[in-house]
């Protein structure tokens, strides 16, 4: 299973013959649950395919094309069963393969699903709503693909953790700043340190290292840096 890039998750739609195919939302996954469970043998067959497809594989795959497959297609494409049955062979199979690959991670992770996962959907949805992503649970369930929900959740958690880290660093700086100073020099140094730290939080005010500072860093590591003569 390969991980998708942010761009692939944000813009996942694939169009085949004017039919737009989007990866599943949680709402669709809940509706498809029973059908997907019944199709586990089909998934196993697909996963065992190699580049050298044999006639027997073709027959096996065709034998799985049943009511559950048409239900998966109808719910995924928001269309009627009649529409699905009217696809030509190439379009129908291409759409089916696209649906499989768009949701491959979910389909295969469902197969290896274990009870007692620490992360509940409630945690995920409440984190997103508290970060103003999605208006309601209904909105997150129906209008965001599953990959999008998890991507945004990871980003929210990442932001939360870096904020906590920043708070800890600020607290450490504040403790140094507020500690008693024994002379004016030490007081000035602490004031400078504090000012530098506060400025570093604002990108526009963040201090850029001068060339002299960079040369000094190299010299401290034992790497001599000399000015290069330029021939005119």
């Amino acid at each position, binding site marked *: 299973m390969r991980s998708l890039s942010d761009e692939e998750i944000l813009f996942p739609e694939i169009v085949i013959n004017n039919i737009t195919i989007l990866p599943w939302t949680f709402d669709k996954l809940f509706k498809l649950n029973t059908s997907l469970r019944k199709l586990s043998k089909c998934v196993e067959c697909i996963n065992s395919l190699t580049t050298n497809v044999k006639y027997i594989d073709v027959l096996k795959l*065709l034998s799985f094309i049943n009511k559950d497959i048409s239900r998966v297609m109808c719910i995924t494409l928001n269309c009627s069963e009649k529409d699905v049955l009217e696809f030509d062979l190439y379009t129908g199979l291409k759409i089916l393969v696209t649906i499989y690959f768009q949701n491959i991670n979910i389909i295969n992770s469902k197969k290896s699903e274990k009870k007692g996962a620490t992360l509940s959907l409630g945690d995920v949805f409440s984190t997103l709503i508290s970060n103003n992503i999605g208006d309601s649970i209904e909105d997150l369930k129906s209008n965001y693909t599953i990959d999008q929900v998890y991507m945004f959740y990871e980003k929210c958690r990442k932001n939360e953790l870096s904020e906590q880290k920043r708070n800890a660093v600020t607290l450490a700086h504040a403790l140094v700043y507020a500690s008693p100073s024994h002379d004016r020099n030490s007081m000035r140094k602490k004031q400078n340190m504090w000012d530098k730290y506060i400025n570093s939080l604002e990108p526009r005010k963040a201090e850029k290292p001068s060339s002299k500072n960079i040369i000094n860093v190299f010299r401290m590591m034992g790497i001599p840096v000399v000015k290069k003569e330029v021939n005119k």
Partner: protein
Amino acid sequence: MKDKEIFPEAKVGDIIIRPWKFGVLFKISSFLEEILDKMEAKNVNIETVDGFVPYTTIARIFTMASDSILKIIAITIEKPEEEIAELDMDEGLEIATIIYNQNTERIKKIINEIFIEKVEDEKSE
């Protein structure tokens, strides 16, 4: 149109055999499953000769799973089962062979084109 050019319909006597549409797959899948189960039980393999399944293999499968094959033929040529049962052996076998070769080769090509390509993509990334 493209399909018609590449996979023209075949004719056996007055019977026209057209390649399957996507919707047909939903009607025949359960019968295919029955055939596969019977083939597995009797250890029959489909091995191709020059890209086609030999007449003798089709005949063996025919004797094992005639009921299911009859149903698939009826759905494919859109005629009642009774009418097909009335056909003579040679004609019936010829129709079954045409249906098999007309569709499996085509579906194999489609699967190779759209499925294997994606599997390779997934593996290479």
